[in-house]
Structures are given as structure tokens and as C-alpha cells.
């Protein structure tokens, strides 16, 4: 009963000049949305730690960023005996006490001085944090003035393996580069905690302690117990939630912006598509009359023009995705809660592209609806009279 899709495809192809404006309009909207979404998703990934669900993040009571937190070594000792914390074969707690300072380096691109987080960790940190791996060089050796740098740091500041970076006026050798699944750690410099504690003047305690829980379901009990303990004065959150609380508002705002821009531009593109489809219907009025005379139903005509609008929009969507594709990997930067720069890579993901295509086709169908209805409602005799 329906008209074949090839009929619509060929019409779109043959009269592509007529559809150009609508196709480009839809393409631009899709490009913009994909671009903003890619930015939002790269951004929220960067501000998230690698984030395991069974990790608890312990900071000073009331601190919502690591830099402004301090936990005394004594308090840490007390905390780490908690039986809910997972232990290794030797009975050592799976924990990562960490210190954090901010150093400033000239950015390779423009020479501007930018803050970078320097984190001192124990040899256990990679294991406890999870998701980290060395991609060049090697790990630091405790006792030596060595650091490893995140991939983003190498990129943005040119700290290659073998080069020296200055931390608190002392040279440290870069011995390795690490990746952290796109997370903010990739924008940090890491060294050995005990080696760094003194030069960084952090001998009194830690900024944060991450602990692996033996059983993640004990988290609430763990949290309640320590937050209520006046001796240690800490706040406990799930590792992932801790970082997401920092990233959330901005990433949410970006996604909101993508949505808002998408809707505003989308409305414009819908009108563009509508205008084009009205033009297409007008130019094919006699053809519509002919098809109806031959016995095609109003519904077949309606479906056919909606299909054509969708095809046209899909072309626009594909073009838009193509235009947005180079955004993948573009790096942006933002400030973390630790007042240091976090670089992130735009992430154009298949789901984002798919969503862009779906949005494009929706714009086409919405824009095509009224023109298709007009086509379907044309009286046959009037339509046939058209030249």
C-alpha cells in the first residue's frame, strides 16, 4: 500500500538543491549539539576520578576539595585499623594516603603560567585507585627525586620522560607517563609520598585517604562510624561520588546548554525543514494528485512525505555528525576544585552521534508533518489541475 522509499530517496537526490537549505540547517544543529555533548562528556570524565564503587574517600570534615583538606597522621593510623577496610596477604590495609600541592608551570601552547596538582602517593596508589597505568617510562622509585606525569601534563607542558620539573624549587626527574582512563589524574604530577612529604612541607598529614572496602555494602556503616567520631574529624564519601560532586554542576550546565541550544536551533531548523517540505509538496502537487487518482491513499501520501522529510533530515544529521567528528580529541581545560588546571579531551562517542541522528530525523519529521498533511489533504481534482 505504501509508496516505495526509493521514490523518496530519488526525489531527494534529484532535487537536492531544493533541500540544501534544510539539510544544512539540520546539519548545523546536529554539529552544535554533538560538539557541546562531546565537550560535556569529556569534561565530566576528566573531573571524575577513575572512581571505583568499592572505594571510600576520606577527607577532613567539611572539606569538599582535597586541597583544602588535612588529615593528621595520627588520625590516619586510627582510621586504618577499621576492619571494614580490605587487606592484602600480609594484612596491610588497601589504602592510599595522599598529599597534594599545587605547582605552577608555563603552558606549552601560550606560555601562560598554569596551576598543576602535584600528588604524593604510596606505591600502593595505582592498585587502590584503579584504572591507572604507565604508558611510557616506569614508576618512581621511593627515595629518589622522581615523578611520573599524566598524559595531559606531558601534552600541555611538554614534560617528557627524562626531563626535569621543578617542584618547590627542587628538580625532579620525569621517569614515566601514566594514563588514567581520561580522568583528571592525567592532568597531575605524581611522586612518592614519603619522598615528597618533606620538600612539599606536608609531613604533618595527608590531604585525603582512599580506602578499599572489603564489602562495599558496609560503606554506610563505615561512613556513619567515622563521621561520628570526634577524634578523627573526617568526611567520608564514595570515591566516585566525591569527584562527581565537583564535576556535576558544570557538566550538568554544559549538557543543559547543549539541550537549550539544541532546542533553540532545533526550532529554527524545524521551520527550515517545514519551509523546504512545503516547497517540495507545492512542486509536486500534480504528482500527488496523480498518485491519489491511481488509488494511493491519503495515508500513503502522508507517510511518503514524512519519509522524505526524514531522509532529508538524516542527510543533514549525517553531515552534521561528519562536521562534528573532528571535535573528537580536541582538548579543553577547566579548573578543578583544587585550583589547578584539568585538561580534558572532547569525546565524540557513538551514542552521541546516534543521538544526533535521532534528533535530526525528529526535526525532519516534525518539520515535515504539516506539509505532509497538506499533501495528503489536497483534493485530487485540484491537485491534478496544477501545472
Amino acid at each position: 500500500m505504501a509508496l516505495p522509499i526509493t521514490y523518496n530517496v530519488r526525489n531527494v537526490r534529484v532535487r537536492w538543491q531544493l533541500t540544501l537549505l534544510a539539510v544544512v540547517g539540520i546539519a548545523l544543529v546536529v554539529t552544535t549539539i554533538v560538539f557541546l555533548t562531546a565537550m560535556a562528556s569529556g569534561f565530566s570524565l576528566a573531573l571524575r576520578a577513575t572512581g571505583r564503587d568499592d572505594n571510600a574517600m576520606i577527607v577532613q570534615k567539611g572539606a569538599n576539595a582535597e586541597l583544602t583538606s588535612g588529615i593528621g597522621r595520627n588520625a590516619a593510623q586510627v582510621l586504618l585499623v577499621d576492619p571494614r577496610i580490605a587487606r592484602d596477604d600480609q594484612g596491610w590495609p588497601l589504602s592510599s594516603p595522599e598529599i597534594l600541592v599545587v605547582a605552577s608551570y608555563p603552558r606549552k601552547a601560550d606560555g601562560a603560567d598554569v596551576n598543576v596538582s602535584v600528588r604524593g602517593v604510596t606505591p600502593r596508589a595505582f592498585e587502590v585507585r584503579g584504572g591507572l597505568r604507565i604508558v611510557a617510562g616506569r614508576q618512581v622509585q621511593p627515595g629518589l627525586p622522581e615523578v611520573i606525569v599524566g598524559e595531559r601534563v606531558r601534552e600541555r607542558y611538554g614534560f617528557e620522560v627524562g626531563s626535569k620539573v621543578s617542584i618547590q624549587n627542587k628538580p625532579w626527574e620525569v621517569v614515566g607517563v601514566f594514563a588514567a582512563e581520561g580522568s583528571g589524574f592525567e592532568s597531575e604530577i605524581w611522586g612518592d609520598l614519603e619522598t615528597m612529604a618533606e620538600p612539599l612541607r606536608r609531613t604533618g598529614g595527608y590531604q585525603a585517604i582512599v580506602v578499599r572496602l572489603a564489602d562495599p555494602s558496609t560503606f554506610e556503616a563505615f561512613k556513619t562510624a567515622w563521621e561520628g567520631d570526634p577524634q578523627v574529624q573526617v568526611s567520608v564519601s564514595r570515591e566516585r561520588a566525591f569527584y562527581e560532586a565537583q564535576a556535576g554542576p558544570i557538566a550538568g550546565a554544559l549538557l543543559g546548554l547543549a539541550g537549550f541550544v539544541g532546542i533553540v536551533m532545533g526550532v529554527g531548523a524545524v521551520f527550515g525543514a517545514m519551509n523546504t517540505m512545503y516547497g517540495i509538496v507545492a512542486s509536486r502537487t500534480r504528482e500527488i494528485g496523480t498518485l491519489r487518482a491511481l488509488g494511493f491513499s491519503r495515508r500513503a501520501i502522508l507517510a511518503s512525505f514524512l519519509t522524505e522529510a526524514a531522509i532529508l533530515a538524516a542527510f543533514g544529521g549525517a553531515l552534521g555528525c561528519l562536521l562534528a567528528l573532528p571535535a573528537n580529541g580536541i582538548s579543553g581545560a577547566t579548573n578543578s576544585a583544587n585550583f589547578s588546571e584539568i585538561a580534558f579531551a572532547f569525546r565524540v562517542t557513538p551514542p552521541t552521534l546516534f543521538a544526533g541522528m535521532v534528533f535530526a530525523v525528529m526535526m525532519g519529521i516534525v518539520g515535515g508533518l504539516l506539509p505532509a498533511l497538506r499533501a495528503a489533504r489536497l483534493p485530487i481534482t485540484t491537485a491534478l489541475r496544477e501545472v
Partner: protein
Amino acid sequence: MSGNGKAPMVAVEGVKKVYRRDAEEVKVLDGLSLEVPEGDFVALMGPSGSGKTTLLNLIAGIDRPTAGKVIVAGTDVAQLGESELARWRSRNVGFIFQFYNLIPVLTAEENVALPLLLTNLSKKERRERALTALKVVGLAERSQHYPRQLSGGQEQRVAIARAIVADPKVLVADEPTGDLDSKSAEEILALMETLNRDFGKTIVMVTHDPRAAQRAHTQHHLEKGVLSL
């Protein structure tokens, strides 16, 4: 009912057609009656604006009378609902237009096969039938050509193939030679005669051309919405 007791293929009974343009009423057909026996080849003549196309549209079931009855192939056309009427047309009426009305983006064969999309024939059967119809009009070798690659006369022959492909009983033609040179017009008329004589199609043709009208068996003259002799 016609004299020999057999129901006519087309029976128009006391048909009125009034168009309303704003407040003004235009009476196009005013109590017109007409019978076309099965197998007849009728020419409708008359001055411009006399209502020929209007009458043809009523017979073809793409318009409805304001009053009166139009019975074609035993069906009271005005009684059918919108979608029933569409289905009825696809089975009973073949259309031939002055400007051929082929779909430009479809090949000759695809154009001819178009009405068969409304049947439940397989793709292969549709192709075969379309090619058969193209053979009847002598254009089998042009099946893969697009309308713009054909001459006017060839386009009209493709259109005729499309009109007969679903094997309807009635063919309606509105000035089928109106846009053709005399040689092509001659070919088209010969083809229509063949369809009438050898394939038994009942044909109602509107024409301004007296030579075309002479090819028909019966001529009717329309004058201000009524038939005159």
C-alpha cells in the same frame, strides 16, 4: 438501464455539480444523464469550461456529484468512503492525462508498475506485468528510461501502459492528444482503438480534436453543463 437489458458500464443519472467559489455558486453540471455501454469508446466534446473534465472526474471516481448518481462497473461511486473509493479506482479505472503525469524520478517500468503496488502481487509478478503492458504499447525496450528521456508520444504510451496494467474495465482520458503533434496523436489514438477493440476496454475520452473524436464510436457534446446532440 440500456435497451438490451445489460447494465451499462457507466451510468450517470441526473448529476449536478456545483462549485462554490466564495459566495458565488458555479453550476457546472446541471442534471446531466449519460450511459456508456460496456466496450464503448466515447468522445466528450464541448467548449472550454463546459464541464467535460468535471464529468470525467465524476466517472473516474476522483470527485463526487453534488446531486445525482454515478454508477460505474456496477458501483455507485458516491456511496463509497474515501479509502474504499481509492481502492475501487485502483481496480476499475485507468487514467490517461493530457500531460501524461508520469513520475519523473521513476523509470518507465516503475511508472507502469505503480498501480500494482496497491495489489498483493510479488515484485517479480509486478515487473512481468509492467513489461507486458509496455509491450502492448510498443515500448518494452524503453523500460529502463526515465520520462525525460522519452518523447511526448512515448511518455503518453507509458502512461497508457500504466493505465492498463491493473486491467481496469474503464479508461478515462482527458485530452490525451492535447499536448502531442499530429503524428504522435495518431499513434496514441490507434493505440486506444486497439485497447477498445482487442482488449475490450470501455473508454471515455474528453477531446477538443474533431479527428480524435471521430475515432470514437460515440460522440457527446457538452454545452453549459448539459449534453446536446
